Every structure is written in structure tokens, then in C-alpha cells.
């Protein structure tokens, strides 16, 4: 791939903003000075882009299908992920918090944008916004309502603020009406928003 005409290349999120121009200048210098090589940079970008909410969704679907796996996921997320070939060998602790009929969990990082990237990829812009970071702890129910989800009456809302060295993912409840679905199909119901806790998975709408 020829990346030497960045103004014509909007793939990989390459924009013409001053910040992007500065990063490209630094990258060029690092490569010229032999600190990095172009393939190393590209490998790193590919690695970062290879991680997506699909990883988290696979863990959830397996947990729904296999109670033993669910137990492992909740007690030792790193080893559970490894069973599915997902490497969480990050120095941070990974914690999976379970939604139950009585408790709904929501994840935020009020300080910045701490996010379980290995499981969910890069955080969406709204997750990093001042608006979400301040309101998720202050009025979590209003925030979820804006995402189209209202916890039922009597459900406790528990917010986890990942202010330090732990990263959190939500294990949503198995939606009703999905009994007998294959793991791969179940995983498709689990969106990024469900894994952050601003929404919940729903059974696919039956047409006809």
C-alpha cells in the first residue's frame, strides 16, 4: 500500500487535521532515524484494528452456552479469553461483571478513555466524550434511556468507573426467545453498546 499521499488517503482514518499531520511528521522522523520501520507501524495499526467488539461478543455467547465457561469468565477473564484464542496479556486486570435480573452494570472511565481494547477494539467517540464521562456516573439511567434502554422497575444500576488499572466488560443477560440459537448467531446479538452496558441484547425480530 502506498501511503505517501496522505491527503488523498482517507482509509485508516487518515485525515488532514493538524494533529494527524503532526503524527505523520513524527512517524516519518522515527522511520528516518531507524527507531521504527514502516512494516512495524503497519503491523501495529493492523493489530489495533483487528480487535473489535466481536471478541467480547464471542466470550458472551460462549458464556451463555456453557455455564462452566461463564464461571471462568467471571472469575478469571484472562484465562477464559485465552480459551477462545484472545490474548489479554495486558498488565491491567480484566473484570467481567454480570447483569442479572436484579442488577444492571454500566462501564465508564471518568478520567479519560480506559476501555477493554483487547476485547472491544477502540472506544467509540461518545465513550471518550466529556458528556458521557460526567453523566454516566451522575445520571446513568438517563444516559441509558438515551441509548434506548430503560432498566425494569426494581433493577439496581451499578456503575463501574475504571479509574485505575482494571478494565471492565459487561456480561449481559441471555435475551429471552433465543433458546436453541447457535453460538455464532448469539454472538451477533451482542453489540458493543451491550458490552459497555448502555444497552442490552435483544432477540432478533421475527419477520413474517
Amino acid at each position, binding site marked *: 500500500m502506498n501511503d505517501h499521499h496522505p491527503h488523498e488517503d482517507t482509509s485508516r482514518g487518515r485525515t488532514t487535521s493538524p494533529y494527524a499531520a503532526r503524527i505523520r511528521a513524527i512517524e516519518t522522523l522515527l522511520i528516518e532515524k531507524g527507531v521504527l520501520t514502516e512494516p512495524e507501524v503497519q503491523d501495529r495499526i493492523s493489530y489495533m484494528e483487528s480487535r473489535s467488539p466481536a471478541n467480547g461478543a464471542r466470550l458472551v455467547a460462549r458464556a451463555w452456552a456453557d455455564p462452566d465457561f461463564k464461571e471462568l469468565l467471571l472469575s478469571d477473564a484472562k484465562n477464559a479469553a485465552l480459551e477462545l484464542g484472545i490474548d489479554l496479556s495486558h498488565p491491567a*486486570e480484566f473484570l467481567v461483571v454480570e447483569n442479572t435480573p436484579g442488577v444492571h452494570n454500566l462501564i465508564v472511565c*471518568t478520567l479519560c478513555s480506559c476501555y477493554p481494547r483487547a476485547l472491544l477494539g477502540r472506544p467509540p467517540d461518545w465513550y471518550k466524550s466529556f458528556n458521557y464521562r460526567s453523566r454516566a456516573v451522575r445520571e446513568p*439511567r438517563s444516559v441509558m434511556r438515551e441509548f434506548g434502554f430503560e432498566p425494569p422497575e426494581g433493577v439496581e444500576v451499578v456503575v463501574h*468507573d475504571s479509574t*485505575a*488499572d482494571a478494565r471492565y466488560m459487561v456480561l449481559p443477560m441471555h435475551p429471552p426467545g433465543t433458546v436453541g440459537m447457535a453460538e455464532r448467531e448469539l454472538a451477533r446479538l451482542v453489540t458493543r453498546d451491550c458490552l459497555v452496558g448502555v444497552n442490552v441484547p435483544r432477540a432478533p425480530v421475527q419477520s413474517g
Partner: protein
Amino acid sequence: MLGEFPNPEDLAYGLSGLPERPLYKVGFRQVDLWEDYEGPADDRLYADVYEQWLEPGEGGTT
């Protein structure tokens, strides 16, 4: 208790962050934090707090 991790205040200055410091998950009732909290009294907020960010409280138990 979430484990022990290098001290982030040292890491920010390029130091080793050693020795590692205990990190706790501290829970609050939302109604204790916000006077006009919108939800029920059972709603909670958990934040991850390093031991050195905590001060001994009064009348607490160990």
C-alpha cells in the same frame, strides 16, 4: 481489593512505579453522592482507588 500495581503517579514521571501499591474497588451509594440522584436508593457507583489516595475514616472498622 483488585490487586497490586505500579504506582501510576510515579509512572507518569517515567519512574518504575515500584513498589507496587494496593488497588481497591470502592463502592458508594449513589444517593450519598448526589443530593438529587434520579434513581432508587440501591443504585451504586464503584471507583478504583489506590491505597495512597485513601485516608483513615472515623469510627470505621478494620
